[in-house]
């Protein structure tokens, strides 16, 4: 393993994040506050409790997940698309590094950024609602795994994309609907029985459910199933990336 190379890529990518630290920080704080004003105060005041939890607190895990997933994808996809776009990818391809090292560097940095934003949202939430975390270690674990797996997916999108429009396409058309319909703002037990069944095909349900369990100790699906779902998703993404580098698809002619 070329650890120096991994660390170099990681630091180079993180430098991009620190150059725009203020924006990176401000945007999640602002959007979280807006969600709390709209969902928490305006709509939430008409909903008493969900599964015995105040609605304001109930949506916190979903809100964090929503941002963390979209941020992981956009960070990682941009991270690898940008070198392709400006041509600096030549350096990666001609360096003595293998695919795993490139992925660890880029995905690690993208996941770190998303993780940071996740904690910023969590901290902002405490300004609006009382939150107790039942299983803090599990909470961090779920968050880290989600950041990593979605950053892997973002990496694939970044390699696949041929232009900036495509870079936005998958997050916009697939990920955002899945996250919204994955129980970010509601418990799936609130859905009609048939939709409760259909929604189980949405992988995001398992992530949000597991993450919510780490906060409140209750979940829509068993925690073990949630962990398995993340594991499967991560393995799938890793498999695709391995194939990409093996064949050189869209990176090496």
């Amino acid at each position: 393993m070329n650890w120096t190379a991994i660390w170099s890529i990681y630091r180079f990518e993180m430098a991009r994040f620190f150059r725009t630290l203020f924006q990176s920080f401000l945007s999640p704080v602002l959007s979280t506050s807006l969600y709390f004003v709209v969902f928490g105060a305006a709509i939430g005041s008409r909903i008493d409790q969900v599964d015995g939890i105040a609605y304001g607190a109930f949506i916190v895990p979903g809100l964090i997940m929503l941002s963390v997933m979209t941020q992981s994808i956009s960070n990682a996809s941009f991270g690898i698309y940008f070198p392709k776009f400006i041509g600096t990818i030549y350096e990666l391809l001609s360096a003595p590094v293998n695919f795993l090292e490139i992925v660890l560097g880029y995905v690690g940095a993208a996941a770190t950024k998303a993780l940071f934003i996740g904690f910023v949202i969590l901290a902002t939430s405490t300004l609006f609602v009382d939150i107790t975390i039942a299983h803090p270690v599990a909470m961090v674990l779920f968050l880290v795994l989600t950041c990593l797996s979605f950053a892997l997916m973002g990496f694939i999108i970044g390699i696949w994309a041929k232009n900036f429009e495509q870079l936005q396409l998958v997050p916009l058309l697939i990920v955002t609907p899945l996250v919204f319909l994955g129980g970010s703002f509601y418990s799936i037990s609130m859905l009609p029985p048939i939709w409760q069944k259909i929604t189980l095909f949405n992988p995001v349900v398992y992530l949000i459910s597991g993450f919510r369990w780490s906060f409140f100790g209750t979940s829509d699906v068993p925690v073990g199933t949630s962990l398995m779902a993340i594991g499967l998703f991560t393995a799938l993404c890793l498999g695709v990336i391995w194939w990409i580098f093996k064949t050189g698809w869209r990176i090496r002619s």
Partner: protein
Amino acid sequence: MAAILSISDLRKSYEGGFEALKGVSLDIDEGEILALLGPNGAGKTTLISTVCGITTPTSGSVKVGGHCILDDFRAARSLIGLVPQEINLEPFEKVINSVRFSRGLFGKPKNEPLIEDILKKLSLWDKRNAQVKELSGGMKRRVLIAKALAHEPRVLFLDEPTAGVDVELRKDMWDVVQELKDRGVTIILTTHYIEEAEAIADRVGVIADGQILLVQDKDKLMAQLGQKQLCVHLSAPITEIPASLASHDLELSETGETLIYTYDTKAERTGITALLNDVATAGLVLADVSTRQSSLEDIFVGLVSGETS
């Protein structure tokens, strides 16, 4: 001297069937400067990209320092530095960080004195904390060179390093290349500028249509293929070459004032004495005599046009 880079029967076909390299074989000795000359689309960049790992070869083998670029890519690539043709740089990063990144990417430990030395030699030290996008074109090109040198390569590829660079800077770059050679770095450069090859190369390779047409010692090449022209300037213009001089295969300049005789400097008899005697016999009065050596450019144009015609 042992070959540090050994290319044998290298072929590259792109999707759609275009064959960019048609069985290239080339050995490059350690410590030499090889200039690859060729017209646009000849396969120069494809050749470099394949050796460096940016493009996957269709068939054939490439060894760098004895390491296969596919099976032993880490060892092979860590010996190679690449300065690409296009200015591909992260625009928002500081110059020094961009150079440090290249060193780290190649798995080399931090070495700030080395980075400082490289940046100073390339006159970039004062700009080390500037963002890349603030630099001029020539400076950006030097940043690319600095990045390639940061990991101390033994083989350096320079893909048209002086394209779009002014004359003074070009000379500076030649000095940098010469200094690298003195330190034992093997250099392969592609260029459109014949004078560049003439000025700095030890050997010259000519590539056209995906094939190496010739690789030869620059001086030998000049001597072997170099033809000389003898220009006989007449005191009064003539309208046609006198019949008595027909056997000499002369050309008459447009003004009619000069007879041009092309001869091979390596031939046993150049035919100059006989020509001058016959010129005098024909009653022509000489005003002056001069000679002209053909340049590498003439040789190159001759070779390439011969290949494509």
